[in-house]
């Protein structure tokens, strides 16, 4: 294939395939990415009433250890 034929082929191809427009991003994706990264590292805060519930349940288990088999059966 000569150089002239290659040029013609290039022109034909360029003519057949319309130029792609709108390649720019419509919005900045970095804030979204940053929000998702921060979301994954959210530290779970345990409120005082959950600690109280855990303490209460632990105390009941210590006082009534015979309930443990029934709990194991349902967990």
């Amino acid at each position, binding site marked *: 294939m000569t150089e002239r034929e290659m040029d013609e082929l290039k022109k034909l191809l360029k003519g057949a395939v319309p130029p792609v427009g709108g390649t720019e991003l419509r919005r900045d994706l970095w804030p979204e990415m940053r929000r998702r990264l921060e979301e994954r590292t959210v530290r*779970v805060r345990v409120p005082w009433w959950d600690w109280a*519930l855990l303490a209460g*349940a632990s105390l009941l288990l210590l006082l009534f250890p*015979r309930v443990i*088999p029934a*709990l*194991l*059966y*349902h*967990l």
Partner: protein
Amino acid sequence: MNRHPYLRAYLAGIAVPTVFLLVTMTAYTLIRYVYNLPIPIERVIVFPMAAVPNAWGLWNLLYVALAEKHHFSLGIFGAVLPLLLVPVGYMVLRILDFAVPAEIFHAMPIAAPIAVILYYLIWKYVVGFLNAELGVYPSVVRG
């Protein structure tokens, strides 16, 4: 990670009781075969082995399905589950004609609130964490 959210919810739900089953099975095996407890536990072991993990998976799936429209606490939703599991577990015992030791039966009024509290805490923190990690429903971990 937006594909198959219900499948991921199911897997996140069954993870906790499946891991905990190892502890339960070890305890049951020790009690039955090491300490020779004369109670045929193997007759009723099917309930914690099969029914409970599946119930957790389906309950979490139901939560994710409902949470798409209504937001409510995962902990409270999980705390309702033992109120369904306890009667079903008792029914299984009755069907299999398993004699529950009297002291365990009498401990149920104490065991029920403990189960509700433990379920509340486990669902709120552990299942919530797994849901967030699997991208099932990220906001639940904050709820």
